[in-house]
Every structure is written in structure tokens, then in C-alpha cells.
């Protein structure tokens, strides 16, 4: 094989291989939608898209799905390259930063123009998507933390009711902890542990969100108690080190008394814990009814060429018909009032436990915490959490840890 044929080969290969990208480059009436680790619903989405295309002939829809931790990285590279998907499904508070930086489209005009549609949703959840009086997202599916408890372990420890106060959480945990067993565990990403602080009246920042407010003697006392309880094994260490699989796995192994987690955990736990049924698993509100949401909502990229189409698609996907279908299959609440009613109604018979869990998601929606509209939420989290972790795991004493955290957070706040 001589030089020329090698070159030909190379050229040919190059041509064919770069084809797809080039083709995708054109085509104007195209919507691309990026979802957050929910590839399991492909069938449903395909149906929805089909209906949408029927209503809007000539529109093609490109559906992308990325796993949780990877989606932000992906979306950012897309932003930089100016190829951001029209619609993006965002979790937690990550949207605020992009909204503040002008990556996302302000949906308020659309929602005002279509009051009927706006009314479909639970106002408390809806208000979670507002930054500087502008509404940037439409709820896709919602979840907030609750307290799961292992009734078997409660019985063994002579306990009947779920804890009604922070003190009781600690007391119960100590009562249940022995050998392999520990009393309490919590998810810790996205501020999901914050109810523990809030129920002790601790605030992260001053009301104007300009200065840290958490470095107080009270806070130090709380962190200290948590640290001591962790050291003694009353609280499971994984509460402060695990991410998703570890804490849920630990709880579903039946050796942890209580778990503070959002409703999505139920299905993971149910899948793994053979011991779980109506009589053995309890679902209650955390003391003070405080909870931290991790909601999913649809936003529209400002760079979108056809925002109206994009909003139309969001409307279709979150409207009563499809929201109901989605809630039914995925067993989640959507903040779409009708859909959630239907979902709960059907679950009451089919899966009373799931019903009990999801019911908590619609109670006390006014008592949500840990979801501050901060443009630099991620940076504050990265500054705050590792230091708090030092305190909780007894590497530093509570005071020093909080002081260090305060320094770090102040730096972030000063920067922006």
C-alpha cells in the first residue's frame, strides 16, 4: 500500500466519520432537550415528543440525557461553545448561578401570558424557581427530605413515635446504637442535611444573603453534639461522608434506625431492603416539619433560537395529561396539582407505603429550607461543607471548624 492510497484512505475515513456532526449542524426548527439522569423514561418521552411533533409539524426534537454529576459540566461546555440545548432539566439550586449569569431565559412573561398553565402548579414549589422576582423554571418533578425510620429497630429500643425534636433524634439514636447498629443517617449533598441546623434555629446567611450567620455558639453546640454522637456511633459516619448509594445502602441493610433523605430514596431502599414493608418502615416529617427540597425543573437556554416552541414543549411535558402519566410510572410528585392527586389516589391502593412517603412531600411545603437563591451556591457549598465535615467527623473541634467555614464562605461572598 503506497503513500497515495494511505492518504485517500485517511481522507475518506475523515469524511465519513465527521459526517454526523456536520449534518446535525444545520436544521433550524430543531429543539434539543437535556434531561437529568432519567434515561429510564425514554418510552414516555418518545410518546410526548410524538404528540408534540404532530401538533407542530416540521419540528424535530433531539433528546439528550446526562447523569447527575456530569450534566453541569456538559451544559457548561455547551454554553461556552454556544451549542446549549434549548431546554434543560436542572436539579436543586444549580440553576440560580446560570440564571444570574444570563444563561437562562426569564419565563415570567410566558407564565403571565398563560395564567391557566401557571395555576396548575403548587405555588410553594413554583416559588422555589424565582430569582430576583423572575421565574426561570417550570417544575418537572419534585422531592423534599423526610425522616424514614426503621420500626423494627424502634421497637427493639422501646420507641414507638418518630422523634419530635433534635434532642429526640440524638436520644433515639443513642438508644438504638449498638455493635453493627447505628441510630441515624442523612444524605448530605445539596444541603439535604440542613433541616438538622434549621430545627435548631441556625441560619446559613444573614437575610440579605450577604454575610455568613452560622458561626454562633448555638451552632457550635449543635455541631459538637452531632460530632459526639457520630464518634459514639449513635449517628452513622456515612451520614457525613457518603453520597447516594452509601447512605441508602446502609439504611436498607436494616442496621440504621433513621434516615433523613428525600422521597427518591424510598425506591432505592425498597429495592434493596428485603425487610421493608408497611409495618417495618415509617415515613414522617423531620422535627419542626423542616425539609430541604431537591426539585427538578425545566429551563430554557437564552441562546435558544425558538424559545416559544421550547416553552410549548415544556407546557406539554408538565401539563396535566403527561405529568399524570409520568407521576404514575415514575412514582414521583410533579408539583402539578392534578397529577399529584391522581398519583396519590392510585398509590393508596397499590402501594400504601409509597403513598405514605409521597404524601409527606405535599405537607408543610411552606417549611422548606436549604434552598437559598444564591448565584454562587456551588462555591459556597464547596467552601462550607468540607469545613463542617471536619467538625462533624471530629477532625477539628466545632468552634474552629465553623470559624474556618466562616472564613471560607466570607471569601466567596466577598468575591462576588
Amino acid at each position, binding site marked *: 500500500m503506497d*503513500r497515495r492510497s*494511505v*492518504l485517500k484512505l*485517511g*481522507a475518506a*475515513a*475523515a469524511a465519513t*466519520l*465527521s459526517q454526523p456532526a456536520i449534518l446535525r449542524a444545520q436544521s433550524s426548527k430543531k429543539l434539543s432537550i437535556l434531561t437529568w439522569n432519567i434515561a429510564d423514561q425514554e418510552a414516555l418521552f418518545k410518546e410526548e415528543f410524538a404528540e408534540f411533533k404532530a401538533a407542530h409539524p416540521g419540528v424535530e426534537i433531539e433528546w439528550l440525557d446526562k447523569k447527575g454529576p456530569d450534566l*453541569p*459540566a456538559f451544559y*457548561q461546555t455547551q*454554553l*461556552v461553545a454556544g451549542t446549549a440545548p434549548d431546554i434543560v432539566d436542572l436539579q436543586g439550586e444549580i440553576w440560580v*448561578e*446560570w440564571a444570574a*449569569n*444570563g*444563561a437562562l431565559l426569564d419565563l415570567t412573561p410566558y407564565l403571565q401570558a398563560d395564567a391557566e398553565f401557571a395555576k396548575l402548579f403548587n405555588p410553594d414549589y413554583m416559588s422555589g424557581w424565582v430569582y430576583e422576582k423572575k421565574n426561570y423554571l417550570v417544575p418537572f418533578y419534585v422531592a423534599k427530605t423526610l425522616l424514614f425510620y426503621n420500626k423494627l429497630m424502634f421497637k427493639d429500643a422501646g420507641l414507638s413515635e418518630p422523634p419530635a425534636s433534635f434532642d429526640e433524634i440524638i436520644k433515639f439514636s443513642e438508644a438504638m446504637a449498638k455493635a*453493627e447498629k447505628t441510630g441515624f443517617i442523612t444524605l448530605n449533598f445539596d444541603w439535604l442535611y440542613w433541616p438538622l441546623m434549621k430545627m435548631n434555629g441556625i441560619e446559613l446567611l444573614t437575610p440579605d444573603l450577604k454575610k455568613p450567620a452560622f458561626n454562633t455558639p448555638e451552632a457550635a453546640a449543635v455541631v459538637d453534639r452531632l460530632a459526639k454522637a457520630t464518634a459514639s456511633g449513635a449517628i452513622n*459516619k*456515612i451520614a*457525613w*461522608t*457518603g*453520597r447516594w448509594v452509601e447512605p441508602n445502602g*446502609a439504611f436498607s*441493610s436494616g442496621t440504621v434506625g433513621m434516615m433523613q433523605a428525600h422521597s427518591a430514596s424510598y425506591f432505592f431502599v425498597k429495592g434493596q431492603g428485603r425487610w421493608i414493608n408497611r409495618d417495618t418502615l415509617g415515613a414522617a416529617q423531620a422535627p419542626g416539619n423542616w425539609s430541604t427540597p431537591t426539585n427538578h425543573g425545566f429551563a430554557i437556554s437564552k441562546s435558544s433560537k425558538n424559545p416559544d416552541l421550547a416553552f410549548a414543549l415544556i407546557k406539554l411535558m408538565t401539563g396535566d395529561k403527561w405529568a399524570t402519566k409520568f407521576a404514575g410510572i415514575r412514582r414521583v410528585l410533579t408539583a402539578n396539582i392534578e397529577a399529584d392527586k391522581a398519583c396519590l389516589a392510585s398509590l393508596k391502593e397499590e402501594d400504601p407505603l409509597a403513598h405514605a412517603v409521597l404524601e409527606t412531600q405535599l405537607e408543610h411545603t411552606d417549611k422548606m429550607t436549604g434552598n437559598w437563591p444564591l448565584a*454562587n451556591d*456551588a*462555591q459556597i457549598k*464547596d467552601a462550607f461543607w*468540607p*469545613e463542617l*465535615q*471536619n467538625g462533624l*467527623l471530629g*477532625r477539628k473541634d466545632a468552634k474552629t471548624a465553623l470559624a474556618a467555614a466562616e472564613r471560607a464562605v466570607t*471569601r466567596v461572598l466577598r468575591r462576588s
Partner: protein
Amino acid sequence: MGLAKPADGKRVVLRRSTRRAILVWAFLAPSLLIFLLYRILPLLWNVVLSFEAWSPLKPAVFIGLDNYQEMLFDDDVFWQALWNTFGIIASAPIGIAIALGLALLVHSNIRGREVYRTIIFVSYPLMTVAVAIIWRWMFDERVGLINYAARSLHLVDKPIPFLNSFTWALPSVIAANIWQMLGFYMVIILSGLQTIPGNLYEAAGIDGANAFHRFIRITVPLLKPSLFLCFVIGMLNSVTSFDLIYVMTSGGPGRATEILITYIYKLGFNETRFDYAAAVTVTFFILLLGITYLANRLSGGNAGAVERE
């Protein structure tokens, strides 16, 4: 794509030396192009960015050395990550030492050496993400094999939460890294051993030098190039082993396993601070360059793969 035209003057009549030069550069061109596109340009991009304030949606503003200033004087995470990185670099020799020992054993012509070599090497080709998953679980506090073994042998009475403890997290990650690199080191060292003429040993044997002396006087000096190569590749492999830490601990607990590469990634993609991340990147690059240079000097210069006419 990539295949540039080697313009060797078959038809055009040129002086041989010129033709050679053209051919050489033509042959180098494609590779150089790739490195230019995916290594050098990105590096320059980082260098420029490190003097600016920029986020994907805001225009870049020149801010001089502010990023570097913050990094050096106002960011303890950077220092933590830096020390951890050093820790990992320092661990490379451990792996190399073990590999050297194994290589010597395998090198002594015993039966089944091929089998041993294969087994020891087999961990290298594995996908790092998978390795990380495997080891995250080997180290697991409750059901990890290591804890299980330690407890059944009554070495410990309480399981050790390796990846969740500030003291153990980094060593655990390092162990996993060594586990993966061991075979690679060994093969390179083995090949080094094979190049050592046996008669040298015989001569030494006649001089009555014992095994240890032979090792110190003959083996080690002649292995320098291989050892250097091990160190450089091993170091680069470990300090850029992003997947491993990303999956095993993602830098935690606290910042216990945060190394520069993971920190750079977090700065960029979690905190959208590409400008600051660029500053760290540049520092990181200079650091690696410096260490490699030192290692080269220590191994008596011009060693290993660097250059050889």
C-alpha cells in the same frame, strides 16, 4: 484527517539532506499537529485565561496576577491539594520499589515466570473507572473485602472506614493506584534487567561480592534509565489519575484526597471558575515539568526516554 502529505521530492530533484529534512518534518507534522491542537493550544489558552476574569457568559477582563495571588495567599484548599499531590508523587517510588523486588524475583529464571508476569501485569490495562469502583468497594467499611479479612483474622476489632477517614483515605487511594501501576513498572524494570549483561554478575561473583553488593553496584546503576522512566510515567499517571479519585472519594472526606487535578476540575465545572482553574492548571504544569527535570538530573541526566542518539 491527520495524515499530512509527506512531500519527499521523488519528482523534484533536491539534495538528499534537504529531502531527508523535508521527509522528517513531514513525518513529524501529523503528530505535532495533534499535540498542537490538544495539548499546546489548550495550555496557551489556560495561560492567557489565568491572567483574566472570565466565565462562560461574561467577557474576559485582564486582571493581571490576581488569580495567582488568590491561589498562593488566600486559598488553603490549593495548598491542601498541592500537598496531597506531592504525597501521591512521593508514593510512586514505593510502587517502583515493590515492582523492582518483584522484577528481581520474576527475573530469576524460575518455572512459570511468564504466568506470574502476566498476572502481575494484568491490572494495568483495566479501565480506571472500573478499578476505582472495585477498590471503593474493597475498602468499604461494612462489606469491604479488606475489612472482612482483617476482622476475621482479628487484626482489628472495629472495621476501618478507609475511604471515609481523614488518615486512611489518601493511602487507600494510593494503594489502589499502585495496584494498577505495579505491573507496568515491573515490565519496564524487567526489560531493564534483561539488558544487563550476565557476565558482569559473574565477574562480580568472582570478586566475591555478595548478592547485596552486586545489587547496589551493578543492578541499580544500570537500571537508572528504567527507574527514571517508571518514575516519570508513574508520576504522571498518578497525579493525573482523575477518574480514580473522582470515583473513589471525589476528593473527600473534607479535602483529604483532593489533588490538584480534581481541584482544577471542581473549580471549572462545579464552581464555573475557569479563569482561576486556569491559574492552578498552569502552576500544576510547571510543577510537573520541574519534577521531571529534577528526576532526570537525579538519574544522571539524559536518562530513559528523554533523548538518545
